[in-house]
């Protein structure tokens, strides 16, 4: 299991029976593979599907059936199709239980940047702002640092903000944080990761939650 797969598996543990779940592109897409077999969720795709199923075999691809990443999908029994206005009415109206999103940066208050890069022309926003604004719960999945080792959890965003709304949970390869009124609270270390390593690789200040679990305790949960 690589770092991204670990993040996806950990995020999957956040899902509850009956949740309506929207998965972003990247690590979030992997989450579908790790949902526990006794937890039944419904995948929403903002281009107008409730009840997305697994990817089709190459010979069963239907060009009229894609997810929000424009990749071919299938649908499960009980699924429904609707237009984009209805789909975003669902999202904005708070009818999606959980969105799992990728990010470029997270600030000390739990606000994120995930749609544009400074200095580049802004020619795409898609549904990022809608999902972040409207979903009941937001889980962010990301590698803790960039390829260059730069922390993605920063004091202040240097990338354009996606929404003033704070996310609820941040899951990285190194740690899990919850976001409260006063900022980030470290909830868990990943197995084999020390508090010092997380402190060193996290630019933003954070508190250690009362219910904090170290890597060993987290490992025990996986077994």
């Amino acid at each position, binding site marked *: 299991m690589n770092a991204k797969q670990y993040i996806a598996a950990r995020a999957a543990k956040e899902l509850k029976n009956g949740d309506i779940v929207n998965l972003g592109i990247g690590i979030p897409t992997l989450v579908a593979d790790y949902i526990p077999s006794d937890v039944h969720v419904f995948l929403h795709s903002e281009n107008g599907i409730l009840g997305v199923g697994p990817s089709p075999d190459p010979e069963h691809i239907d060009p009229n059936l894609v997810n929000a990443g424009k990749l071919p999908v299938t649908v499960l029994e009980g699924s429904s199709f609707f237009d984009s206005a209805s789909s975003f009415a669902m*999202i904005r109206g708070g009818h999606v239980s959980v969105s799992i999103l990728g990010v470029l940066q997270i600030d000390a208050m739990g606000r994120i940047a995930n749609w544009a890069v400074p200095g580049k022309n802004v020619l795409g926003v898609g549904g990022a702002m809608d999902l972040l604004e409207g979903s009941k719960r937001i889980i962010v999945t990301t590698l803790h640092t960039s390829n260059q080792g730069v922390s993605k959890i920063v004091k202040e965003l240097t990338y354009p903000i996606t929404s003033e709304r704070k996310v609820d949970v941040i899951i990285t390869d190194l740690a899990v944080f919850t976001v409260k009124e006063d900022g980030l609270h470290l909830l868990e270390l990943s197995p084999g990761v020390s508090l010092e390593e997380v402190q060193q690789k996290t630019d933003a200040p954070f508190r250690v939650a009362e219910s904090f679990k170290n890597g060993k305790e987290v490992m025990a949960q996986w077994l």
Partner: protein
Amino acid sequence: MFGSVFYISQMLHPQKSKRGKGKKMSKLITCEEAVKKVTSGSRIMVGGFGLVGSPLSLIAALAQSEVKDLEIISNNLGEPGRGLGVLVRQKQVKKAIGSYFTSNPEVVKAFQDKELEVELLPQGTMSEAIRAGGAGLGGFYTPVSVGTKMAENKEERTLNGKKYVFQEPLKANFALIKAKKADRLGNLIYNQSARNFNPMMATAADVVIAEVDEMVEVGEISSEEIVTPHLYVDFIVVKGGN
């Protein structure tokens, strides 16, 4: 493997969860159970255009209950002693928001006797306000009612040379709606002109209870014909069911 993104046979025969998270997902309850969820003072949307598409079994159960001081959002308030008219006669309704109450003389009398508050909206403004409530909007500008009594206490604004009035969204604690069929997940289809306000109301309340003529297996309503996707429906009662 694709995890267990909803797989139908599992849901219909829920297994005991290893981690205690599993719960039976059936939304089917009785009218009695449904009505027990409603507390006095609640704001309730009730579907229907007159009695057509109105959840009559749920309303009958409400009339049997002790709940009162209700704020009803519905196009009409039934007829004397029929549909929502029963709740009016039994003085269970404190306030009504809708478009046309004149067809029930008991509503007119209750209003005159100051037993019932009334807030009137043009029918299109009302249906759009309910949609806006369900769609997470802060309000909208409509050209309807500009310059009339209906716009007296509303913000007027000129946009691109045309006058509009501002309308706030409508939301509620409960929506009692009527559909033709539900599948076991809660996907709904309606019956001809009995559709009316029901699909919007399904989106705009904290708890949505759908009264249906018939409950069918998942898959019997096709993905393309579903009007209200199941995520909007919390509970289902079968018409006349106890």
